């Protein structure tokens, strides 16, 4: 429960209509895309850094937890008010402040939806590459806080590679500017900008973001390649890169996913293939032609069953359809879809998939896998019914096994979805005592009272949440 006086003060800062306390409103800020939930005590909708700074000071003084939130599409429990307190909704800070074409920099507020940024800069002939599957709804603030990736990460990198400066409201209410909002280069002091990138709202609230932009490629070519074994597909991925070709996209679908795509979309994929690669290369027109030849050669030599090449934009969209519909079709198989994010060294992808296959048999679960083969970033997608408590227990155990194995292979807990609450218990295994304790020291230095998104990422305390 939030004290009446605090509510009044909040209302004075943001206006009555931006302070939500009705139980039905609160219920709607209890979840994110993990489908876990905890109802907040209050939701405050903010509009600028000044309001945010005042609220941060107010909540800190009164010992109330505060949880930043963008669109609530994260897959780590990051925006859930797991220990009770106030959710701060940031999606109204949604202005693109400047697109500087000459210097190729955009400055924007965190609530701008990623797709909007993408559309606005492309109108000016520029390109912002990070493209998470949730691009149509995720806020840039959320993407920076999660270090979001996407299909183009192999060649173009993830959000963290494009952030050059930030404005952040610190847990003590100070408003800090890091990096630069106007120059691409600069290296004075510690790289505070990248301390906040990927900090998942635990170190400060991002209120302004400067991103670097690039020019879009002139040409591209798209391929769909079928393999009779996951191992062959894995070898193909390795060989392509060995041949110095870095596709902008190199996506993988396993057999369960392929069959689900066929069930719902009937696009004519052979049901007996074990693996499918969607590959796209881009660049200067001549380079693309040359690379395309090599790529086709390599794929066939490794033993592809067949390879389709898009001749025009319409065909490209057809080929993309298999990958685009992967999650949607899996989601239709069962009432509940749990999307995971295991990442292993590229060469270990076949091994990881084999393990996932074993785990699936062991717990009698349905798991379809797809993902960014080039980055070794897999999305094992567990399909269950969350009303079935027994099944959900098995899910917990399966996820634990997947992550343990993933780290044993030299992989990481999350390629792009963040740690939040759901992966916090695995942190020590990945970063060892020393790493985790440094993380905790940093958190303590910035947020000594542990009031900003407490117990996430480096949480000392294990948090258990129920599915909504």
């Amino acid at each position, binding site marked *: 429960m939030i004290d009446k006086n605090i509510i009044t003060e909040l209302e004075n800062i943001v206006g009555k209509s931006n302070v939500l306390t*009705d*139980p*039905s*409103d609160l*219920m*709607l*800020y*209890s*979840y*994110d*895309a*993990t*489908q876990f939930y905890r109802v907040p005590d209050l939701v405050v*909708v903010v509009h600028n850094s000044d309001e945010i700074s005042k609220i941060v000071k107010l909540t800190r003084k009164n010992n109330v937890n505060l949880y930043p939130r963008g*669109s*609530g*599409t994260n897959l780590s429990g990051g925006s859930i008010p797991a220990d009770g307190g106030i959710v701060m*909704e940031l*999606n*109204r800070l*949604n202005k693109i402040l400047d697109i500087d074409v000459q210097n190729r920099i955009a400055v924007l507020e965190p*609530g701008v*939806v990623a*797709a909007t940024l993408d559309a606005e800069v492309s109108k000016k002939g520029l390109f912002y590459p990070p493209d998470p599957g*949730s691009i*149509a*709804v995720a806020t840039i603030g959320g993407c920076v806080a999660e270090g979001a990736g996407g299909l183009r990460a192999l060649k173009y990198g993830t959000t963290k590679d494009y952030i050059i400066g930030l404005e952040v409201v610190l847990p003590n209410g100070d408003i800090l500017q890091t990096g630069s909002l106007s120059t691409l280069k600069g290296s004075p002091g510690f790289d505070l900008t990248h301390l906040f990138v990927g900090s998942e709202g635990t170190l400060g609230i991002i209120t302004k973001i400067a991103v670097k932009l690039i020019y879009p490629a002139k040409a591209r070519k798209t391929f769909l390649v079928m393999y009779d074994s996951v191992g062959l597909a894995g070898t193909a991925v390795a060989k392509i890169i060995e041949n110095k070709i870095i596709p902008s996209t190199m996506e993988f679908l396993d057999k369960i996913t392929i069959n689900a795509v066929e069930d719902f979309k009937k696009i004519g994929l052979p049901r007996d293939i074990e693996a499918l690669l969607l590959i796209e290369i881009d660049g200067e027109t001549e380079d693309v032609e040359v690379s395309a030849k090599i790529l086709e050669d390599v794929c066939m030599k490794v033993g592809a069953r067949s390879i389709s090449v898009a001749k025009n934009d319409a065909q490209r969209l057809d080929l993309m359809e298999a990958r685009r519909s992967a*999650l*949607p079709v899996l*989601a*239709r198989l069962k*009432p*509940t*879809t749990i999307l995971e994010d295991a990442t292993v060294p590229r060469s270990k992808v076949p091994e990881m998939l084999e393990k996932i296959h074993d785990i699936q048999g062991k717990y009698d679960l349905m798991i379809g896998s797809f993902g960014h083969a080039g980055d070794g970033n897999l999305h094992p997608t567990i399909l269950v*019914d*969350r*009303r079935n408590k027994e099944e959900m227990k098995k899910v917990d155990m399966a996820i634990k096994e997947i992550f343990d194995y993933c780290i044993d292979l030299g992989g990481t807990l999350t390629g792009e979805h963040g740690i939040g609450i759901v992966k916090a218990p695995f942190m020590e295994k990945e970063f060892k005592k020393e790493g985790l304790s440094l993380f905790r020291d940093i958190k303590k230095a910035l947020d000594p009272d542990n009031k900003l998104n407490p117990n996430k990422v480096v949480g000392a305390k294990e948090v258990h949440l129920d599915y*909504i």
Partner: protein
Amino acid sequence: MTTSNDNTLPLIEEYYEEQIIQCMKCGMCQSTCPVYYEDSLETGCARGKLALSEALLHGKLEPNHKIEMIFNKCLLCHACAQACPVGLSPDKVFAAARAEMVKRYDMPWIKSVIYRKLLGQGKLSSLTGAISLANRLKLFSLARSLSIPKMLGKSVERLSFIDLPDIPSKPFMDRFPEVLEPKVKPIGTVGYFVGCAQNSVFQDVAEASVNVLLSLGYRVIIPKGQGCCGFPHYGAGDFETLKQKIAQNSSAFKKHKLDAIIISCATGGSGLKDVYPEITKNDDITTLGAKVYDISEFLAQKHLKDLKKIMPKNTKEKIKVTYHDACHLNRLQGVASQPRDLLNIMPSYEFVEMENSTKCCGEGGGFTVYYQEISTNVANRKRETIKNTGAKIVALGCPGCRAQISGALKQDGLNIDTRHTVCLLWDEIKKANGK
């Protein structure tokens, strides 16, 4: 006020529990929701309202009027369904949830009066008696959108915003006989579903539709016993009256042997094609006796060539016309290319696309009254995109959109006409005949 003590919502459960449970909370539905676009609150988008349905279903929240209002915060535009990776139809869940609320709380008296007493009555023609009395109140818009702002204690702004022509003194169905014969030997017999908007306010649409069908050589039957389609009741959660409407229209149309049933109201059409089967678990041929077509769908698919032949020859100058995709035509019926095909064969017009033509205009039954500000903002966005085309006319296929958009245009003093596509077509045919 509560009529039941338990926390479960039987109707929601019965129809849509699976839909509710399958929502994976991914939030993708935020991307297309016109309501969420305006206020960025989770109560706007489908995910929020589905979460609310689930909380009610599992007794985590108690139903109350605040929750009823959240379910009303939806244009039933179906845009969320288009974005949903799981393929859910959240709008249908919300209609069911509203129905549950209606059952629980009974409807506010004003809703009951309009929906049960006026639209719920036997025949369309008897409705008009009441309507002409209330001409100045523009009861159609009230009936369709529940907008009796004064009586609801809201400001009267809304009334001046929605723009409606004066209601003719005689309803369409009193002016036209039940059976109309073409001048030539009939090429077939079609039934015309008038719909209350076309029967009372937008009679030009009914007239044009019937006349175009006649000029193509159809015998047109306008079954006397037909009534309102029932969509307003569906939208407001009154499933009981909806079921009565289905029974009434079924018996009215089944009396005749028809090759097709034609309707020129987008909302009514989606009601007949989409809502009826959901409730009756039968297709339109079983329920109404013939396949249902929207007028532009029917004309473009079956008679584009014939129509081309009866277009005027020497048109001096072309008037720019743009087209607004009504949600209930485009998304619910998949009718999008057909009206454009028709516009493209009309020699007097030059067709230009507007940006975001499929975006809702903000007219959504009770929504328009309960959430005036959002509704108006959505409409104003539509107005800007129309303005940018430089068109002199907006063609469309829905009476609700027409009232809403024409209101938005007039508010800004713009001299842009809103016309049903079939009215433009009929004008062309008349022009060709030198009338």
